[in-house]
C-alpha cells in the first residue's frame, strides 16, 4: 500500500484550476520528486496534502485512510510533516528552540513519554545544526534555515515528509550534504516528497518523479523516463512544433 495517495484531486480558485484531477502516490522509504514549471500547482497540491487547502474535489489517503477532511494538526499527528518554500521559521526563537518547540507540541498533544530535550539534541546533531544551535534563527543564512525547518519537521517523527524547494538558497556544498541526509532519512523508512527546481538534485535523489504542468499530471516515472518524455521537454522548454 502506498504511504500517500491522492485520487483525482482538483483545486479551483474562482475560474482558475490550479490542480486538475491529479492522482499520484508516494511510497515509504523513498524520495519522490514532484516537479513542473512555475504555476504548475505543486505547492497547491502540497497544501491539499497538509490540509492548508481543501480540494474542490478528489480525496487524499494516508496509509489507505481518508484524510481529505482532517485538520492540519490532525494530519500532523497521523505523520504528515512539511517545510515551507518561503520559510516559516519562528523568528523570535533560537535555532534550538525552533526545533525543540516541535517536540513541545508533540508532547502536549499526544499521550506517552517524549524526551523533548534528548530528541532535540539528537536531531540537531543529525542535521549538523548543533554548532549553531544557540544562534537566533533570524541571523543564520537561508541554506541553514532550510535545514532547521527539516529538523523541526523531523521532531514530530513523521512518516511522510513534504519538502517545498529545500535546496533554494543553499550553496552547492550544502545541497550535497542535504542530499546525503535525505537519502539517509529515506533509508529509515520515511517517505519523502520533494518539490524542487534544482533538477539535477531531483534526478540524482529520486526513485520516482511526478511532473505537473498547468495543474495536470503529465508524466510519472524514473528520472530517465521523465527526462526522455517529450511532454516534459515541451512543458519545460516549449513546444517544438510551435517553434519549428
Amino acid at each position, binding site marked *: 500500500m502506498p504511504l500517500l495517495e491522492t485520487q483525482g484531486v482538483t483545486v479551483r480558485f474562482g475560474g482558475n484550476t490550479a490542480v486538475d484531477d491529479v492522482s499520484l502516490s508516494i511510497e515509504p522509504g523513498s524520495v519522490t520528486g514532484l516537479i513542473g514549471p512555475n504555476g504548475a500547482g505543486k505547492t497547491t497540491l502540497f497544501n491539499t496534502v497538509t490540509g*492548508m487547502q481543501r480540494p474542490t474535489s478528489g480525496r487524499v489517503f494516508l496509509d489507505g485512510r481518508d484524510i481529505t477532511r482532517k*485538520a492540519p494538526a490532525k494530519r500532523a499527528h497521523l505523520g504528515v510533516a512539511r517545510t*515551507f518554500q518561503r520559510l*516559516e521559521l519562528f523568528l*523570535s*526563537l533560537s535555532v534550538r528552540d525552533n526545533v525543540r*518547540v516541535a517536540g*513541545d*507540541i508533540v508532547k502536549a498533544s499526544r499521550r506517552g513519554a517524549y524526551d523533548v530535550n534528548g530528541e532535540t539534541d539528537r536531531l540537531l546533531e543529525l542535521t549538523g545544526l548543533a554548532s549553531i544551535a544557540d544562534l537566533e534563527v533570524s541571523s543564520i543564512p537561508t541554506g541553514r534555515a532550510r535545514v532547521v525547518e527539516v529538523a523541526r519537521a523531523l521532531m514530530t517523527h513523521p512518516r511522510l515528509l513534504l519538502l517545498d524547494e529545500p535546496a533554494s538558497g543553499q550553496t552547492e556544498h550544502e545541497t550535497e550534504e542535504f542530499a546525503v541526509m535525505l537519502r539517509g532519512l529515506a533509508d529509515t523508512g520515511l517517505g519523502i516528497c520533494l518539490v524542487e527546481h534544482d533538477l539535477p538534485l531531483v534526478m540524482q535523489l529520486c526513485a520516482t518523479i511526478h511532473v505537473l504542468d498547468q495543474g495536470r499530471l503529465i508524466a510519472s516515472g524514473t528520472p530517465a523516463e521523465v527526462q526522455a518524455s517529450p511532454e516534459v521537454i515541451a512543458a519545460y522548454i516549449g513546444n517544438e512544433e510551435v517553434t519549428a
Partner: protein
Amino acid sequence: MDLFLTYTILGLVLGSVYAIAASGLVLTYTTSGIFNFAHGAQAMLAAFLYWQFKVAWGMPTLVAFVLVVCVIGPLLGIVLYNVLMKGLRDVEEVTKVVVTVAVLLGMVALSQWIWDPTQARKMDMLFGSSTSIDVFGVVVRYHELLCVVSAIALAVALRLVFTRTRLGVTMRAVVDDPDLLRLNGYNPERIAMSSWALGSGLAAFAGVLVTPVAGGSLEANTLTLLVIDTFAAAMFGRLRSIPRTFACAIALGLVVTYAGGYAPTQWDWVSNFKAALPMVVLFLVLLVLPQDRLRGTSQTRTRERARVPSVRQAAVWGLAFVAIMYLILQVASPIMVGPLIAALVFAVIALSLVPLTGYAGEINLAPLSFGAIGVIVAFHTGIVGTGLAARLNWVGIVAGTIVTALVGGLVALPALRLRGLYLALGTMAFGGIVSTLVIKEIQPRHWFGLDIALFPAGILVVPPPKIGPLDMAKESTFLMTLAVLFAVLGIGIVALRNTGYGRRLAAMKDSPAATAMLGQSLVKLKLSVFMLSAGIAGLGGILMASTAGSVSAENFLIVVSLSLVMLTVVGGVSHVSGALFGGVMVGLVFTLISGTFSGLAIEHPEFESLFGSFAHLFAIAVALMGIGVNQNPTGVVHQICESYRPLRNARPVLYAGGAVAAGVYVLNYVGVYGDWWLAILMFCGVLLLPIVGRIWMPERMMTPAELAEHEARRTPPPELMGLDQPLSDTERFELDLLLGLPPRPLPLQEFAEELEQLTGKDEVHAPA
C-alpha cells in the same frame, strides 16, 4: 400600524447613520489595512466642532456643516494617514491597534481640554426639531429625513465613485493587487490617503448626524462609543463589502428600534439590552464569519527581538521589587499608599496581557471588563461578616478568578478561528456588553431559584481581603501582599515563557501555519492562553475593587481599559516590566498628576486655567506615547533597561550608585527632606548613573566601536594641535617639511619607533 411605521422610520434613521459611519470604516480598512478604532472619536470631534461653529460662534448651519464635514473631516484623515498610518503597513497587528486606540484616547483628551466636560452642551437637529413632514401620519423631522436621504445618496454616490471615477476604480484595484497598480503608474499610498480623507469625512458626517438622533447631548466618551456600535455592520461586510455593510447597518438600526419599541414594559432589562444589541450582533457576526484560511505569512526580518529573561533573573528582579516596595513603604506618606496600591492592582490586570498579547500576539481590549466579572463573582461568593468587620475571603477570590477564566474562554470562542483583529473586536464587544448589560443589572432578578441582583444598586461594596491570618484591612499589609503577589505572578509568567507552553505560544505568534503543521491545534492554544489571561484580569479586578472599597460602572469604562492596554504596550507588552509600567501609569501617575495640578490650581487660583491645561496636556502626551509605539515596538522599559545593561561590567559604578541611593534614602528616613525630594533625587541619580559610568569607566561601559569613537574625540583635531598640547618632535618635523623649512634634527630612534608602530613593519629606514 402607525406605531410600526414610526418604529420603522426611527429604525431606518438609526440604520442610516450606522451605514454612513460603517462605510467609512470599511473604506479605510480595505485600502490601507488599518482598522481605525479612532473612527468614533473622529465623529465625536466633528460633532463638537459643529457645535462650536453653529451654537457657540453662531455660524449658519450650512457653513458649519460644510466646514466640518467637507473640509476639516477629510483634512484630519489626510493628516492621520500621512503622519501615522502610512508607516504601519508591515507592522504587527498589536501595533496597528494600539496606534489607532491612542489616537482615539488623544482625541477624547483633546476634546475634554477644549470643551470642559462639566459643562453641558446640547446639539439640536440640523434643521431644528420643529421642521418636519408628515409620512402616512407619522411626523418625520427634516433631520431624520436628511439621515435617510444621505444614506441613500451615499450608497448611490459610492457606487458611482467606485465604477465611474478613476479614483474609485483604483480604490477597488488596490484591493485586488497593489503591486500591479504601481506598475500601471499609480501610487497606492496616495489612493489609501484619499480613502482616509473620504472615510474621515464620512466619520464627521456620521458624528454630526448621530448626535441629535442619540439625544443631542455632547459627551465625548458616549459619542466616541456610539460609532463602535457600527462595528457589527462593518464586520458583516467582512470589512470589504460596502453593500453588505449597508444592509447590516439598516437591519441593525431596525432591530434595535423594534426591540426597544415592542418589548413588554415589564421587561425592565430591554432598554439595557437595546444598548447592548449592536455588541451582541457583533458577537454573532464574528461567530458566523467563515474561518480564515491558514496561509503562510510573508516573513520579514522584524526589528530587534525582545530578550527572554531567565527564571533566575526574574526571581532576582522580583525580590528586588518587593524590597524596593518595602523601602518605599517605610518613608512614603500615608496618602501615597493608596495610589501605590492602585498602581499594583492595575499592574496585575496589565500582567494578564503579557502572556496573551506579548507571547501569543492576541489582543484583549477590555481587560477591565473581565475584571468586572471577577468582582461580581467574588462579591456574591466571598464576603463574610458585615460592616467594618466584613472581609473578602479566599473562596471569593478563587471563584472570581476561575469564573472569569471560563467567561474568557466563552468570549474568545467566536473569534478563535479568526485573525488577531477579530479577536480584539470580540473583546471590545464583550466590554460593551459588560458595561451596558451586566453592570446595569442593578435590580434583583430571579436566577435559578435565587433572587439576586448582579450589580446591586449600581455599586458593589467590596471589603478588604482576609486570607488566613493575613488581614489586608491595613493598607501597608495590602501593599506588601500585592507587591509579593505581583512579583510571584511576574516570575511565574517569565517561567511560563521558558516552558514548552511558552515556546508554543511564541511559535504560534511567529508562524501560525508552521505551528499548525507541527500538530498544534491553534484553537486549543489560543483558548488556553485567553483563559489564563482572563483569569489574571479577573483576579486583578477583584483586588482593584477591594482596594477601592467600592466599584461602580465608572471603574470599568472601556476607555480605562484602552488606556491600560495602550500603556502596557508602550511599556513593552512582552515583559512583566511593561505591565508594571502600564499599571503605574494608570493607577499612580494619572492620579498624581491630575491631583497635583488640581491641588495647585486651588492653591493658586490665578493660574487655575494654566494648571488645568497641564493636566490635559499630560493626558494628550500619554496618548502621543501610544501613537509613537511604532518607533519602539519592544517597549520603553526594555529600551531603558538596555541602556543600563553595560553597567553590569562596571561594578564600582553600581556600588557607588547603590551607596548614594542608600544615603539619599536614609536622609529622607531621618526627615532631612520630604517625599518629593526623595523621588526627585532618586530619579536624577538613576538617570545619571549610566552617564557617570561612561565618564568614570569608559572602557567597561562602551562597545569597542563606541570606545574608538570616544578615543578619537580625545585626540585633538589637527587645527588644535599645538594649542591644547605642545607639538611632539615628529609633528614638528612633519610641519617643517610641509612648510618647506629646514627640518630640525629629529631624535631618529624615536621616529623609527613611531613609524614602526604606525606601519607594523620592522624594516623602516629613518630619513637621513
